[in-house]
């Protein structure tokens, strides 16, 4: 008995591939839709554990999605408004710090120039400080020019992200079942398994990273407030955001705090305490939070992590860096499946 494989399946496979490629092409060409949809999708994955905990109450999906959106709005609106207010105030204060920073950089540069002249009898002619300041001024100008556009996009996102999020939470299963219908019979089991694994890994990773960022943000902000360091909320927020990036993140989050400490002439600014605080926060992260929350989810070799982050930054900037690790974990899974298909069966 000879088993004929893929009989009448070729058309289905062709139709499926065409559908997937066209969907990807449409999504990538429409960035105004893709970006808020991507954010909503990531948020929906982050909310999945919360959604699951409500299943026992036997709420219908529509009600549950609405309840979650209202709940999020209710729980987070006050802290968000307060946080935005504080961070905005601190950002305004930065305006007064910028001339200080310029003065500090110029003074430092002149002292280094003199030191080099004295010791090595060599005069540094290049002036990187001027070009750095020019670069900063140019970028600030660009930011001011594009500010209305950025605000417009943010407002658009503010409407579109909750809308997409609501429908993803409500109709994800229905869309998934419709999509599964067009997957050819020969690959349906494997495709569904990979889709499920990708969603689980991606969701768990993003959720774990968000918790990790929150922990770091809270530790840094509280610590800076205790030691009376300036811009505690802004620096805490920056530390939380940059912590999402693996390896380089904690260092990037530390640089602004160091600059503030160096520029600030206030004798109360305790630079040493700040450095210890960042060290302690990162040790807690590396020794407790990361191994418990994140590493078990992806289980990748450190070199693979570094390479995937570099590749992610090259292709997708900061967003690429953030999603690079779960993507690498997914490709590892895909590779294992293909390897099993090619070599494992014998």
């Amino acid at each position: 008995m000879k088993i004929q494989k893929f009989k009448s399946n070729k058309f289905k496979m062709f139709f499926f591939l065409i559908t997937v490629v066209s969907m990807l092409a449409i999504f990538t060409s429409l960035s105004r839709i893709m970006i808020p949809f991507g954010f909503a999708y990531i948020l929906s994955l982050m909310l999945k554990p919360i959604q699951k905990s409500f299943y026992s109450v036997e709420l219908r999906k529509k009600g549950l999605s609405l309840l979650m959106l209202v709940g999020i709005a209710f729980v987070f609106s006050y802290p968000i408004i307060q946080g935005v207010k504080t961070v905005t105030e601190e950002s305004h204060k930065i305006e007064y710090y910028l001339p200080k920073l310029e003065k500090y950089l110029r003074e430092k540069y002149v002292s280094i120039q003199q030191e080099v002249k004295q010791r090595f009898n060599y005069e540094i002619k290049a002036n990187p400080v001027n070009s750095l300041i020019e670069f900063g001024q140019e970028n600030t100008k660009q930011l001011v020019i594009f500010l209305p556009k950025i605000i417009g996009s943010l407002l658009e996102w503010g409407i579109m992200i909750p809308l997409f999020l609501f429908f993803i939470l409500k109709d994800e299963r229905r869309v998934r079942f419709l999509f599964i219908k067009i997957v050819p019979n020969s690959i349906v089991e494997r495709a569904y398994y990979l889709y499920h694994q990708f969603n689980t890994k991606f969701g768990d990773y993003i959720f774990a990273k968000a918790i990790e960022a929150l922990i770091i943000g809270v530790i840094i902000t509280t610590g800076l407030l205790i030691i009376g360091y300036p811009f505690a909320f802004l620096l805490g927020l920056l530390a939380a955001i940059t912590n999402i990036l693996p390896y380089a993140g904690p260092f990037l989050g530390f640089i602004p705090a160091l600059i503030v400490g160096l520029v600030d002439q206030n004798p109360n600014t305790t630079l040493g305490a700040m450095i210890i605080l960042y060290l302690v926060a990162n040790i807690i992260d590396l020794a407790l939070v990361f191994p418990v929350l994140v590493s078990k989810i992806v289980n990748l070799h450190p070199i693979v992590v570094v390479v995937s982050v570099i590749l992610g930054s090259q292709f997708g900037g900061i967003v690429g860096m953030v999603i690079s690790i779960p993507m690498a974990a997914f490709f590892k899974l895909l590779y294992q499946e293909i390897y099993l298909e090619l070599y494992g069966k014998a």
Partner: protein
Amino acid sequence: MSSHEENIQNEFDLNPSKAKSKRLNIPTLEYFWQSSPLSAGNLNNVPCFLRSIKAFDNFSDYELKQFSHFIHKRSFSLDEVIIEEGDSGFGFYLIYDGDVEVFTRRTRVVDGLTEVYQQLVVRLSKFEYFGELALLEKQNKRNASVVSRGNTTLLAIYKPDIEELIERHPVIGAKFLQGISLIVAHRFNKVTEELRNTKEKLMELEHKLENSKI
């Protein structure tokens, strides 16, 4: 028609004026009658089909309806491979319509050359099922190939859906796993019985061989 409905109908025939006041109840009754997944109008639906399968005996009508939301209906044409021996398995299939054949890969020596061939194990038809181990094992490998014989419609239940079912409806999930356990236990008993028979035959043959030697 149920006796309760017959009573109402009789009342309508005898006293039309009284019936007018009762008319309000009819849509309610109709609603309950039609909303039942196993009602006459919906005889061809998935819950009704599931009701005919022994593994789902302990499900209520409502539970069958809920469970049917987690099922995928898939169509296969003649000679199409449904599952292949050695592949990773993630789905359990119920035959909704049509027939399938189960094959296992065997080897034999013909003229000194080893040849691989497919041996027919069993032919399955409507209301029968296969692939249940895929839902229980973490890394399941299919131990037989299943091929469609003609246009076949199968109801597929995949592992991710079962995980979701257990999270969303733990009672239905538990009942389903209980049903699957019954199927596995039934198959295990059959295999044990067959093994016992084979052993007995083997012992008989050994006994005969010993006797012939003497």
